[in-house]
């Protein structure tokens, strides 16, 4: 009991342990903890940053999709218009060609009718002359009666 030299022994021991702790124990543990803390904080910050970037990228992607859709709509509309125009043009042309051909055919038919009429008239007039000459038992002078024959042919 009571104070004695043990006190000095304890004080020296205490100082030695403080110095050991200060030199070998505290700094490495504290450093490791600080480093971990920093690492975790960095990780959280970068996660937040990535989240933000992801949102931006999503927005950008949506924008791109919207633009692409609009463009595609434009292109389809233009194509439709162009197609309709081509069809119209083809139709008009075809109609024109058809009409032209019809007209040509009509002309040819009329020409042929005219020819056939002329031929028929010639044959009728020949027959009339032949018939008349049979009736009169003599040659009709074709040249003398040419005018009358022409009139006749005209009436056929």
């Amino acid at each position, binding site marked *: 009991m009571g*104070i004695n*030299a043990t006190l000095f*022994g*304890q004080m020296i021991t*205490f100082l030695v*342990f403080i110095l*050991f*702790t200060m030199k070998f124990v505290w700094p490495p*543990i*504290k450093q490791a903890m600080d480093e971990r803390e920093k690492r975790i904080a960095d990780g959280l910050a970068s996660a937040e940053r990535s989240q933000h970037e992801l949102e931006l990228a999503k927005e950008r992607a949506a924008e791109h999709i919207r633009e692409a859709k609009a463009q595609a709509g434009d292109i389809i509309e233009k194509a439709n218009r162009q197609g309709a125009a081509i069809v119209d043009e083809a139709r008009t042309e075809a109609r024109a060609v058809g009409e032209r051909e019809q007209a040509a055919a009509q002309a040819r038919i009329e020409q042929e009718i005219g020819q056939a009429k002329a031929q028929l008239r010639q044959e009728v007039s020949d027959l009339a002359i032949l018939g008349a000459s049979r009736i009169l038992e003599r040659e009709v002078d074709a040249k003398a009666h040419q005018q009358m024959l022409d009139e006749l042919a005209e009436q056929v």
Partner: protein
Amino acid sequence: MASGSATEYVKHHLQHLTVGEGFWTLHIDTLVVSWLLGLLFFGLFYSVARRANADAPTGFQTFVETCVEFIDNQVSESFHGPKDFVAPLALTIFVWVLFWNLMDLIPVDLFPEIGMALGIEYLRILPSADMNATFGLSLTVFFLIIIYSIKGKGAKGFGKELFCHPFGSHPALWPANLMLNIVELIAKPVSLGMRLFGNLYAAEIIFILIALLPFWAQWIPGVAWAIFHILVIPLQAFIFMVLTVVYLSLAYEDHG
């Protein structure tokens, strides 16, 4: 129970193993036990410190880091100067004193009986119930308070505070100021050392008294006192540590 009367039994359990005479007596048991506990503390923490890394902590490293973080928070709250010395000091005090106090939970007869068997007549393994141990700490803290006062305020500032602080700087008031400051300074280590010593000494005596009861009745008060003591043991270590940090903070900061 040891042979002889109850008085002799208690006396025996409060006797230190000593070497030397008069003031130059050394309490071998206190010294050796506190060295061993200090080495245990240092060994445990150093083994973690050596392979400390910033990866996820495992096992014992978690416990050590919890202690370090706890101490670091306490020191950061109270002390605003450079912490290179104060934080390791606080850690040493807390864990070392905690280990000392834990010796109180070892049955009071165990080590004295082992000592007897080995031919050692007296063996007290509770360093905190030895005033030399607690005052060893608190006197060291006392010198640190003076060192930090001079470091923080300069020799002149510290002197000015000693002579002029509570009442004023008139030369007629110097003796009164000085007296008061000296009392205040000395009260710090005395109260620190006495508080720890008193708490643990009282606890030890009660454990010894409980050991005097008949064996079938010991467990009721024994368990109750031990459970209560589980609170006191870390609390006293914590109080010693926090007060040390607060005293050093008061010494370091200029508040004149």
